[in-house]
């Protein structure tokens, strides 16, 4: 039995998913609390070449499994491979990305290896004092009533429940402790090209029957490749923008700010914006440096997906809108009047700033 922490790495077409790098960062942080190591499990066809990247992002070692069956995701071959690694290496903790792959794979594996699983975690703690500090600072939990003995409970897995209305911390009494973690929640470590680690292949012994579904067709949807979780700045539209055409303005502003546009659920449901733009409980969790909420009322499900943003600006006509409760800067006003002016002002500001960098004296005087 080891006390190491393993990450089931997700790859699509040979590219490592961002969430897996975030999880390696988190695993490394947790492993340091345990005085143990963070390992990555890398599955795919001809995937070995990606192992170094995982080391550079913080993994102490990589165990890879290669087989043509693992080229595209299919439940059984992946479940078999991950279960084999777990059975051989006996990790203390196994982490998955809470994606449409991880949320299919993790429960199947948990049932197979006979352990518990916590879905969609947004926070993991091994160090009890860190947990207490987090809880007393950010939640209404009465931390003075926590028993000191709880410090030995293992991994404290915190996740939203009831549609984001409450948070719950889950414990697992079996090993490994398994969790899936929402993309965009954990911090990636800085890439360090000088890092080295052990890279080891594992032979799982696949048989053709393991492929119990036939993949007839793989259709990549290019319009779906935008990942708002990657944007450093998001300009987000709610029902208050009045109509789908106003997303053009939001997009223009977002591009000026070097970011992307996103949407509330209502607008996605109304067909004003594509599903992959949706922020919130049933959409994506985002934590950009700036979240500009335009005409968004701030339903709790929406807030659950964006409240981790560094700086939140909200513009809404209704001064009672719930979005103002999480906003750092709240403006009661008409987003349709403000946004076009804001586009102009940002463009002007940037032009001037660039002028200064170029040494344009007129611009410096104006500034």
């Amino acid at each position, binding site marked *: 039995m080891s006390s190491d922490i393993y990450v089931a790495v997700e790859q*699509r077409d040979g590219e490592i998913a961002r969430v897996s790098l975030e999880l390696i960062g988190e695993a490394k942080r947790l492993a340091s609390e345990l005085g143990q190591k963070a390992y990555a499990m890398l599955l795919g066809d001809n995937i070995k070449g990606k192992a170094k990247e995982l080391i550079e992002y913080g993994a102490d070692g990589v165990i890879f499994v290669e087989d043509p069956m693992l080229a595209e995701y299919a*439940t059984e071959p992946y*479940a078999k491979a991950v279960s084999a690694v777990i059975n051989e290496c006996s990790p203390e903790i196994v982490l998955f990305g809470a*994606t*449409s792959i991880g*949320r299919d794979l*993790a*429960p*199947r594996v*948990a*049932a*197979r290896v006979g*352990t518990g*699983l916590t*879905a*969609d975690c947004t926070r993991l703690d091994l160090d009890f004092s860190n947990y207490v500090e987090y*809880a007393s600072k*950010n*939640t*209404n*939990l009465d931390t003075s009533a926590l028993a000191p003995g709880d410090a030995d*409970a293992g991994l404290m897995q915190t996740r939203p*429940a*009831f549609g984001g*209305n*409450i*948070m*719950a*911390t*889950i*414990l*697992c*009494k079996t090993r490994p402790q398994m969790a899936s973690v929402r993309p965009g929640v954990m911090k990636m470590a800085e890439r360090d090209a000088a890092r080295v680690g052990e890279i080891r292949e594992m032979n799982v012994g696949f048989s053709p029957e393991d492929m*119990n*579904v*036939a993949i*007839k*067709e*793989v*259709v990549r*949807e290019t319009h779906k490749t935008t990942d708002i979780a990657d944007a450093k700045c998001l300009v987000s539209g709610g029902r208050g923008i009045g109509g789908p055409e106003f997303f053009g303005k939001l997009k223009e502003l977002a591009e000026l700010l070097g970011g992307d546009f996103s949407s509330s659920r209502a607008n996605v449901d109304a067909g004003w914006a594509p599903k992959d733009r949706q922020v919130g409980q049933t959409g994506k969790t985002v934590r950009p*440096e*700036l979240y500009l909420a335009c005409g968004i009322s701030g339903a*709790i499900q929406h807030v659950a997906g964006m409240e981790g943003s560094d*700086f*939140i600006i909200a513009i809404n006509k209704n001064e009672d809108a719930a979005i*103002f*409760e999480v*906003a*750092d*800067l*709240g*403006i009661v*006003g*008409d987003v349709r009047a*403000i946004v076009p*002016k804001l586009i102009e*002002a*940002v463009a002007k*500001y940037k032009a001037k700033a660039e002028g200064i960098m170029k040494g344009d004296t007129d611009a410096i005087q104006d500034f």
Partner: protein
Amino acid sequence: MKIVVCIKQVPDTSEVKLDSKTGRLMREGVPSIINPDDKSGIEAALRIKEETGGSVAVVSMGPPQADFALREALAMGCDEAYLITAKEFAGSDTFATAKILAGALGKIGFDLIITGRQAIDGDTAQVGPQIAENLNIPQVSYVEDIEVNGCALTVKRQFEDRYHILEVKTPCLLTALSELAPPRYMHVRGTVEAYEKEVQTLGFEDLAGTFDPSCIGLAGSPTSVYKSFGKKPKGAGEMHKNLSADEAVSLIISKMAERHII
């Protein structure tokens, strides 16, 4: 084809509100509904039955009140309903729930099992795949379309950046997205007939031997809730009510500049 749909009765979480003073959930008066993904699964099953024949049974594990959700499924057109309920089952996590449901499904018999992708109260998406593992049958989750060709199904499986067209043979388990099939309403006649039919109850004794009793209930569940709590409201930011559009714009610009966003 014998299709069994697993459903969960859940509180309508969009109606759940937080008491801003205590941070507690206000569950009083919140209606109980059939979990939306599960309801889409019922619709998909009924459509398959209408096109290719067979029968649709609906199964729910929960307290006796879950009978109401099963009656709704009957009123939509399902043929049979099973309520899996026992005090021994209470407190089961997804691991234990899947053990119990798999035991019940083995007893009821099936060609195809459909579950919702996830329930809106727990959002775990775990029970479907774990039932499949316990029954040792293939699973396809995040299903957006189903086509039946004899004992083979062609399904569209959704991912974030792509979809797969998969072929899978029965017996198997699919988890339905709410996009799979927008559910029909009950028929008024269905509501009348739903209470003329019997909802069959499967208790602890009825399922004896289908699972290891030490793996179920609160004691048999590997995971447990340590604490649940509300979030502390974020410290209030600044709010401006009476600015002109131009004033608002200058303020936003200055804040962005202050934080080096522009």
